[in-house]
């Protein structure tokens, strides 16, 4: 720190910063070590790649939700929006016959467009309709699912042709495409949030909306934009899921809003807004998938899985908080 002048009362602050920044990575390491001890199959490269690939759909959606939560808002509609976007993509693919790359692109864009539109509607109703985002997106959760059922007639759309599922199963060298998408997306999101003006406004408006508005920033438009982006990313998650399943399920991604929010919160983003880091959301999503993977590898009984899953999430949060407290004093 170049200017220690006025803060001499906090000598252990640097350690605190480090713990704050890396607590979740420590938790991840602990889980990996524990699983490696419990199951001989865990540390296989295919298993580790599987875990990240399995986490990819939720993790893609969680990028948008992280931004929404940084703004001190919430989006409960992402699962339904993802399902609708996936269904629309599948529908367009079916209509176009599949294999043609132009149709492929068109189908993906149609899915993203639907996601963006519903996201923007979430934002507009929240900002200009004056309804809390919790209520707006709860409504959209239901509307999105209804539209998906309507669009699919309640039946899966399948037989989408091989070109499309390459998005989920293709590899560049040894690396699965979904992992490449994840890395690119998270890098871009982190750069956007930490180095650009709009990124800074997202954090600032989540901390003190009024101050940012008084500074001349159009916070309303910013919020609508972020909700729209969250919709686009939910759409992308839905498209990826459809590629992965090689079919659009009318009930796809049901309840995913909770997985996504769990990933964001595990990653340390404050539900009160203004604090958090998108890269840690990725770690959160991977930890969640790691738990599922571990439960499957150890063949834990169904009812115990629910208890274990919830318990482990709470444990992870507790662990992370106590790492912060022990090493970082009383931040937050």
């Amino acid at each position, binding site marked *: *720190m*170049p*200017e*220690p*002048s*006025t*803060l001499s009362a906090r000598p252990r602050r640097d350690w605190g910063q480090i713990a704050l920044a890396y607590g979740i990575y420590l938790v991840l390491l602990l889980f990996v070590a524990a699983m490696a001890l419990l199951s001989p199959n865990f540390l296989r490269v295919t298993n580790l790649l599987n875990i990240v690939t399995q986490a990819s759909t939720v993790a893609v959606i969680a990028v948008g939700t992280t931004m929404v939560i940084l703004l001190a808002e919430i989006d409960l509609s992402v699962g339904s929006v993802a399902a609708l976007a996936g269904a629309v993509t599948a529908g367009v693919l079916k209509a176009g016959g599949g294999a043609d790359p132009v149709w492929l692109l068109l189908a993906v864009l149609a899915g993203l467009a639907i996601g963006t539109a519903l996201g923007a509607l979430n934002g507009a109703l929240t900002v200009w309709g004056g309804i809390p985002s919790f209520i707006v997106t709860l409504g959209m959760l239901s509307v999105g699912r209804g539209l998906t059922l309507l669009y699919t007639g309640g039946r899966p759309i399948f037989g989408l042709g091989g070109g499309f599922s390459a998005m989920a199963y293709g590899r560049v060298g040894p690396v699965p495409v979904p992992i490449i998408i994840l890395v690119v997306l998270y890098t871009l999101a982190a750069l*956007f949030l930490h*180095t*650009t*003006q*709009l990124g*800074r406004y997202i*954090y*600032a408006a989540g*901390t*003190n909306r*009024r*101050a*940012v*508005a*008084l*500074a*001349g*920033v159009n916070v309303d438009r910013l919020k609508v*934009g972020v909700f729209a982006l969250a919709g686009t990313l939910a759409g992308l998650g839905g498209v990826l899921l459809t590629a992965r399943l090689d079919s659009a399920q009318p009930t796809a991604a049901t309840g995913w809003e909770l997985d996504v929010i769990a990933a964001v919160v595990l990653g340390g983003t404050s539900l009160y807004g*203004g*604090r958090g880091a998108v890269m840690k959301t990725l770690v959160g999503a991977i930890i969640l998938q790691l738990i599922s993977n571990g439960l499957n590898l150890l063949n834990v009984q169904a009812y115990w899985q629910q208890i274990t899953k919830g318990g482990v999430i709470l444990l992870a949060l507790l662990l992370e908080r106590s790492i912060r407290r022990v090493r970082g004093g009383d931040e937050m």
Partner: protein
Amino acid sequence: MTDTGTGTPLLELQGIVKRFGGVLALDDVSLSLDRGQVLGLVGDNGAGKSTLIKVVAGAYQPDAGTLRMDGAGVRFPAPRSAKEAGIETVYQDLALVDTLDAAGNIFLGRELVRFGGGPVKVLNKRRMQESARELLGRLALELPSSGTEVGMLSGGQRQSVAISRALYTRPKLVILDEPTSALAVTEARKVLELPRTLAAQGVAVIIISHTLQDVLDVTDRIAVLRKGRKVADLRTAETTLEELVAHIVGGGRTRGAGYA
């Protein structure tokens, strides 16, 4: 008029009215202010002081009345337009973003950009740090460590950041809303030197305060609001604490009632 000299006033308010639903928050308020002049705005809670400065700062739109700057009619549909006209405001709660550092707050809304455009403007964090340090130094204000969130600073340090933020653009008019309310006595003393420093540089200052002695100490003129009306407009040198109190609580002489 109580002009201190030079022709057209910097800011002129004429017949400002502001309603919130059925409540008349400002009732036909007129006021003028010259360059280099320090004006105190006093009144009881709910007298309309905050509403009036928000109208001047562009945060509220008046329902009737006109604003003039340098003799020309102006409208401030948003805080940004008031800033562009040279009016900066330091709010009572300072309107700081606790999770940003001093530089982040000083440059909030006018960040220095390294490159890019549209939604992707990459911040020039280093230059903002440097400029912030330089600015704080110039104002002889205490310098919080760069990178420290302002939420962790003391009241006086926060006040310094808020004021630096207001002065960064070299405004023509600075509005200070209760600048000393959250401060320890020594810190408050320091902050109260600021209006005179600014006035000496030709900047006009409006200061809102409940601490009448402070207002008497640092202002040239004092306007008193009561129930949304301006009930007095006094030269500080010619008034007393007792007279001020009488105007604020009502029933006193309304010597300034005729002022435009």
